[in-house]
């Protein structure tokens, strides 16, 4: 059992929140701005050359008889289509419309079709094509995994992205995408088959 309080013999339906232990993220988090969705004012020169934040992935919950040694492999396998989506949809430049196939390659066909319709949220398409650069200031994924009798069936990924689009004149548009992705296995490959995402924009 990998969570501290909810796995101590309680196998009844959970009526309340579980307080889980979080294993270290897969990568060291890069410095990121404080979470905020309210407009912020510019207090100094914009640092246009800052690097993208690393992808942080943690397994928050894994029950159902899965061996502890499987955690690292599971974390890598589940996060693979998520990382591909983030990179292609938000990181690969100012116009993701040119490469939506890559953005949704790790999604089931139906989910990919829906996500294309919602591209203003599921990609950085809303920023437009005229950006000089896109910087990802935070990309965090928290995994909640379902398994029974040692067999993994699916997972919810809580996702937090903070993205900055830099315009040629130097101004910067920031937005965040937060919510959940739903994933299952197709053999050993994990796929995103659903989502519930929200986008909020900041101006500076």
């Amino acid at each position, binding site marked *: 059992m990998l969570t501290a309080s909810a796995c101590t013999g309680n196998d009844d339906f959970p009526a309340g*929140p579980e307080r889980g232990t979080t294993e270290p993220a897969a990568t060291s988090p890069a410095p990121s701005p404080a979470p905020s969705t309210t407009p912020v004012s510019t207090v100094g020169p914009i640092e246009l050359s800052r690097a993208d934040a690393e992808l942080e992935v943690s397994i928050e919950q894994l029950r159902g008889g899965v061996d502890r040694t499987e955690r690292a492999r599971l974390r890598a396998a589940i996060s693979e289509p998520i990382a591909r989506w983030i990179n292609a949809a938000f990181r690969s430049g100012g116009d993701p419309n040119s490469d939506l196939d890559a953005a949704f390659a790790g999604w089931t066909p139906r989910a990919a079709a829906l996500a294309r319709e919602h591209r203003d949220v599921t990609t950085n398409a809303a920023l437009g094509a005229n950006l000089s650069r896109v910087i990802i200031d935070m990309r965090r994924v928290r995994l909640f995994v379902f398994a029974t009798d040692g067999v993994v*069936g699916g997972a919810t990924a809580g996702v937090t992205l903070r993205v900055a689009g830099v315009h040629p004149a130097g101004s910067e548009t920031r937005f965040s995408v937060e919510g959940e992705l739903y994933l299952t296995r197709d053999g050993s490959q994990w796929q995103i088959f659903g989502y519930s995402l929200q986008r909020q924009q900041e101006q500076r």
Partner: protein
Amino acid sequence: MSVALLTVLGVVVPDASRPPPEFALVQLDGVEGLDATDDVIWMLALGSDARPGEPVMRSRSDAIQLVGMNTVNHHAVTIGIPRDSYVDIRGFGRDKINAAMVYGGPEATAGAVTALTDIKPDYVFVASFPGLIRMVNGVGGVRAEVTYKMDGLNQAFYPGPHQFSGVEALAFARIRYGLPGGDFDRSMDQGELLAGGLATLAGRMRQPGYFERALGVFARYTDTNLSPVELYRLGRTVMTIDPAQVRVCVLTGRTGYAGGASVVFADLAATRSLVADVRNDATVDQTC
């Protein structure tokens, strides 16, 4: 059909590592499993009347709810089928529909429901008395509307919204006497409990990881021929339904007698009309 049945019954072998099953979830033949392309899913939810020591899936089904879920517009409909409905049970002749599970398990009940409604369920879910109590208590109770004053099974309920504990929910689903519509009103109450349960779960889903924890407990107490992947997808699909868009319906009919037993003769014209409305989209456009 027989393959699915054998699979499920084959799993009901005592397993020291698992508690006794309190639920069964059977995927019937004719579907390839749930995927994102299924716009409408039909599930037959059965409440088994099994007493301690009796087989859950070979006892009478005293709650029979055919539930349609539209994964596109997030509507759903519950169609209550009075347990005394006098129907054809393939291979066993005419009898009350609640006897079908005794004759041929959940699949016989599904067959009888299909013969009556012309809707073939994709899944059959069977809950025992302890299973229902566990489920309701586990989610912290279920809120549903009481229409009539009810008294029975050591419980009393009064008109208005009520927060049901597990034991209360079981009584609410079983009490018939005193209800002006008898079996029909009881079927309505069962549908209200289902709708209330969905609303409760939808509220709980805001807690990160709740879905996975609840599904894990459900799997532990359930015999099923669904793989963990299929179970996860089905659960996620059910949770796409908007509780505010669930319509509770009951098949109408008239009471009468058959072989000295009090039975319900379904209003076939009304049944056909309701089915024509909901079969393809699980969305009620007319009154029900």
